[in-house]
């Protein structure tokens, strides 16, 4: 699904701060991978590049079988819209819109009809356990519920890859477990998941942990998990 080869990201001009030092790895279809590392190790930069929000300075990136490192801004936006789903630490729901409208948003950009959008959004909200709360605004939802809306929104355009940046960072441990369970269920349904975290307990739920330090992968391990 994802394969990067020698990706380098330098901020500013040549000689500027190098966030990624020729990082390489591949994530096969349907894998649940976690990326771990101390803050400032380049996790966010990596996630931005994988999410096509940013471009690598050098290196190759193949997403779903096609190279994407040289795409234009508009092309990257379209790939992002159609193949990727983002789950944020701070949820990033639009505050003035209801849960349903938030989930509809990416489908609007994809050009789906209004009726179809609402149907699918309702389905997704039901899927994440928010049936009956479609018309609440984020302010009327708990943290865990907000993140569920965030996940439903990320799934709106049936992405191939779900990218989650510290999805439980703003949640208490009980809610974190619920969200994680949701991720595991999605994984079982065949979704490829890439989760950035610095919580070992959460990383332990993944199939694979990539440890990053100073812009390179320093360890690629399979967590010992009681199953």
């Amino acid at each position, binding site marked *: 699904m994802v394969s990067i080869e020698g990706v380098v990201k330098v901020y500013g001009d040549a000689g500027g701060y190098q966030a990624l030092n020729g990082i390489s790895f591949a994530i096969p279809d349907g894998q649940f991978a976690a990326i771990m590392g101390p803050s400032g190790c380049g996790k966010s930069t990596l996630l931005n590049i994988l999410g096509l929000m940013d471009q690598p300075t050098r290196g190759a990136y193949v997403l779903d079988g096609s190279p994407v490192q040289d795409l234009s801004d*508009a092309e990257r936006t379209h790939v992002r819209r159609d193949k990727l789903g983002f789950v944020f630490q701070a949820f990033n729901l639009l505050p003035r819109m209801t849960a349903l409208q938030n989930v509809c948003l990416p489908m609007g950009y994809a050009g789906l009809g209004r009726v179809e959008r609402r149907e699918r959004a309702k389905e997704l909200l039901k899927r994440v356990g928010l049936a009956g709360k479609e018309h609440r605004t984020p302010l009327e939802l708990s943290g865990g519920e907000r993140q569920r809306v965030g996940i439903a929104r990320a799934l709106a355009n049936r992405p191939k890859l779900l990218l989650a940046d510290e999805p439980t960072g703003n949640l208490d441990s009980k809610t974190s477990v619920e969200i994680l369970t949701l991720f595991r269920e999605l994984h079982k349904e065949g979704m490829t998941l890439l989760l950035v975290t610095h919580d070992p307990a959460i990383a332990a739920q993944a199939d694979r942990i990539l440890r990053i330090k100073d812009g390179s992968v320093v360890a690629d391990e399979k967590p010992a998990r009681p199953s």
Partner: protein
Amino acid sequence: MNLGESVRTGFVEIWSHKTRSFLSFSSIAFGVAAILYTFANINYMYERRTKAFEISGPGRMDIQKKQVPGTVTAAALSKGLTTSDAEAIVEAMPWLYMVSPIMRTWADLKDGTFSESVQVEGVTPEWRRRGWVYQMRGRFFDDYDVETAARVAIALEPGGWAGKKPFWARWWKDEGFDLHVKRADLLGKTVTLGDGVYTIVGILKNPPKDKDPRWFFRSGGNILVPLTTAQRYLAGSSETKAYDAVDEIIVDTGNIDTVPRARRRIEALLSGRHRGVTDYEVSDFRETVQNMLENMRKYAVAVLAVGIVAILAGGVGIMNVTLATIFSRIREIGVRRALGATRADILAQFLTEAGLLGILGGIAGIAMGLTGIKYLTDDGPETIAALLWWHFPATLAISAGTALLFALYPAYQASRLDPVEALRYE
């Protein structure tokens, strides 16, 4: 993202920032109101000119008495403007539609206990030929009245209002003679004018004040008498004045094309008769109208300038609001970009919001303009009636266009935001 979607989002945004949106569209609205007023005024101006030409006659000229310095010499050479001048003009150019000599004076009118100094105009039957907007009871003067200097008079009655008294005329009251002529039916009565006794043979009722088409040649008379009567019995004493002196001769050639020719001949004729003393002034009516129109045009341009300034201020307001909106929504822009919004989507979204503000402002401005014109101007209903249908879409287009133009730069800035930076923005 389609337009309907953007419009819906735009409305949500506008609604959730009511004060900010209201401020920016009100400035647009002021501009629109001013522009609409200008449109209305310019059009009304042309309508009135056409009407005024129809009533006053297309080939009208005014010959007016003029004071000259060095009176003693001048008086020796010329008697001033007289009835004979008018007769000479008729003799030279019998084809003229109207040659109407007028003499103006003041006299005391007494009717029972009523007594007031009124303005008297001495006229000939020719007076009827142009500018006839009256409703007449009784009769007008005939040649016999003029030949015999008959002691007959016609009273002019004020026209009142067409409908309900308009807002702006709340403090208007008919007083003195106007009131008297309305209350006491003078037709057939005998009144004292100056030191003579006159029979009122006719009453001319003016058109309603708010429908009066004579917007720049309204005569100021209260009482009409035959010209000869005025000259003989009512003229003030002046040693240099001829017995048949007049104040003005109004000429109408009957056709606009013959005005220059008639004017040249009249000037030549009078110059000879007055022995070169220019104690008169010939003014082409078109010049008078043109001058007035020129003034009105300047006024319209000034209002238009105010309108443009107001609308530009509104545009800057919209720019400000759009910038503020964008700053408060940088993170949202990041989220939208992450979810698949292209730069064009973001640009379209902010432009739509600004355009909506512009259209709302335009609608509010049209409402404001119409209300303002109706209640604050002299000729409200007529001015509004002079608006053509396309003035409304045109004003709306101006306001929406200004809003879009001024939102372009901030919206472009928003669309150029780096999504990563925008998402990280607190």
